[in-house]
């Protein structure tokens, strides 16, 4: 039985039990079905770049060949539907599963199952969970899909958009203590994940992540909340869409052009995902006194290869609750650690024209490929949330994004000259609800 089948079976089992069990022992926590959703629409003013909420969304969905200024909109990007089934088997044991239907390029059912877990609380403040659990590194890691839970329409793209990793298959353990009215919570997670796919031209790179670890420490007292986190991910296979490029670069070995061979080998290493590692560190602070919500988070991600993510990112959000109205402002940015790759010399220099053209072309393709993973942009956001009922909120949001040269991963566009900066304005409307 594959892992996906196991997850699907667990979900089906819970849903079937949901409708059949009437055990009096569960009176305090009978099986429950809850859900949430977002109906969202986004429009932007740039016809040749695609709006994506995260890198697991295909730019082609909103970038048709005949795209014009007037049809740069999408109902898919922010719309989603989540269903959660939970039940308590005993005071210490509970089952939970959550399926989230959203626009993403990996469309097998297993990729829509965010959690399917068994939780055991041997002590009231200690919890061990096994199965598919939420990847819990950031302040709102486990709530990124639930728009009702935060003021804005979507989590800051610059902070969350490059890592649409929602869950891991494995286990976690958390323990909380209260000291001087302050609540401290430590959590460790370990496992693997198949949950991320990255579009690469017409193909897809499924990130098979293993040896995935997360450690977080959270502090909560009064209106303050602080969370620091550290995570490591290991990629265990190559990106198949890059195979032709890998082969071409490997083919230069023994070409008798030492400088070209050395640089080709360097490029080849910098785009070798197999056995590469990613390290993330984050620090988040929240101040929420019921009237004001101020939330800020900083992150640093480093990888062992340059074509992976090597960036610093952060955001600052401020929201003011005025009855049912919540105006908010948000600013977020992501910056690469290194400047973009550029040719230090032309591989074809001094060679016959035909061969020179081929080598120069290969060199340019390799440089473009490595630079394609760079993210270098910032967004300024203004918005308004209106709580229509205690279970639904309507939101309007305006985003102004500036993308710097060669920093286009979060704003893909096949026809763009990525060496040029780009400024994009986007208008979004969303209805978030829970049930």
């Amino acid at each position, binding site marked *: 039985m594959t892992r996906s089948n196991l997850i699907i079976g667990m979900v089906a089992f819970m849903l079937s039990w949901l409708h059949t069990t009437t055990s009096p022992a569960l009176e305090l926590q009978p099986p429950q079905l809850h859900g949430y959703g977002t109906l969202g629409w986004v429009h932007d003013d740039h016809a040749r770049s695609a709006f994506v909420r995260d890198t697991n969304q295909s730019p082609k969905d909103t970038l048709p060949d005949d795209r014009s200024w007037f049809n740069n909109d999408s109902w898919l990007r922010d719309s989603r539907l989540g269903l959660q089934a939970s039940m308590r088997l005993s005071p210490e044991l509970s089952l939970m599963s959550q399926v989230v239907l959203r626009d993403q390029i990996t469309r097998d059912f297993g990729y829509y199952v965010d959690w399917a*877990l068994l939780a055991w609380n041997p002590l009231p403040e200690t919890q061990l969970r096994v199965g598919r659990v939420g990847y819990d590194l950031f302040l709102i890691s486990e709530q990124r899909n639930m728009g009702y839970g935060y003021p804005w329409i979507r989590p800051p793209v610059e902070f969350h958009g490059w890592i649409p990793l929602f869950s891991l298959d494995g286990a976690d353990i958390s323990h909380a203590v209260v000291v001087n009215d302050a609540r401290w919570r430590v959590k460790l997670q370990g496992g693997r994940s198949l949950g991320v796919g990255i579009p690469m031209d017409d193909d897809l790179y499924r990130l098979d992540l293993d040896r995935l670890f997360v450690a977080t420490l959270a502090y909560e007292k009064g209106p303050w909340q602080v969370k620091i986190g550290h995570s490591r991910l290991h990629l265990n296979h190559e990106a198949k869409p890059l195979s032709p490029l890998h082969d071409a670069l490997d083919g230069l070995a023994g070409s008798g052009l030492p400088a070209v061979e050395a640089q080709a080998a360097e490029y080849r290493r910098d785009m070798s995902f197999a056995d590469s590692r990613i390290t993330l560190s984050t620090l988040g602070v929240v101040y929420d006194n*019921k009237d004001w919500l101020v939330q800020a988070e900083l992150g640093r991600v480093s990888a062992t290869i340059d074509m992976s993510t090597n960036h610093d990112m952060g955001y600052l959000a401020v929201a003011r*609750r005025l009855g049912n109205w919540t105006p908010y402002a948000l600013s977020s940015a992501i910056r690469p650690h290194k400047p973009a790759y550029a040719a230090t010399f032309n591989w074809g220099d001094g060679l016959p024209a035909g061969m020179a053209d081929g080598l120069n072309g290969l060199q340019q393709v390799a440089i473009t490929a490595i630079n394609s993973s760079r993210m270098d942009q910032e967004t300024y956001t203004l918005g308004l949330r209106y709580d229509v*009922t205690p279970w639904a909120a309507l939101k309007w949001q305006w985003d102004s994004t500036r993308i710097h040269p060669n920093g286009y991963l979060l704003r893909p566009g096949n026809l763009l000259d990525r060496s040029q900066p780009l400024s994009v304005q986007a208008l979004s409307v969303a209805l978030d609800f829970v049930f």
Partner: protein
Amino acid sequence: MKTVIALLVSMLGFVSEVALAENLVVVVHPSNPLTALTRPQLSDLFLGRGTTFPDGQRATIVEQARDSRTRESFFRLVNGMSLNQVNTYWARLTFSGRINPPTFMTDGRGVLRTVATNPEAIGYVDAGLVDESVRVLLDLRE
């Protein structure tokens, strides 16, 4: 003038309804040994931050109907949160997979019955509903 009077009458009616809903007491099972609970401790329990009573015993909260005026009044009295804020807070907890959502009863009598039959339960009801099947732990009218 008639419009103003009608408006005042309707506002008085609203205030009266709120006042009725604020006639709340916190109840536990008669066997629960706890003798006192502060409002911050109560708030932590009903926000899922704490899962035990101050004496270390496991606590299970029993909620009124999710969108009820009783629940709205309870949180305003205990920690000043609006129903929108409470629902948003609980939605974040529930859909993060960290904690099972609380059990919601349809009315105060349901809360009373559940607390009366579960030693670890804690709930809140209109003071007028209380009988010998439960014990009042905290009077929110004080």
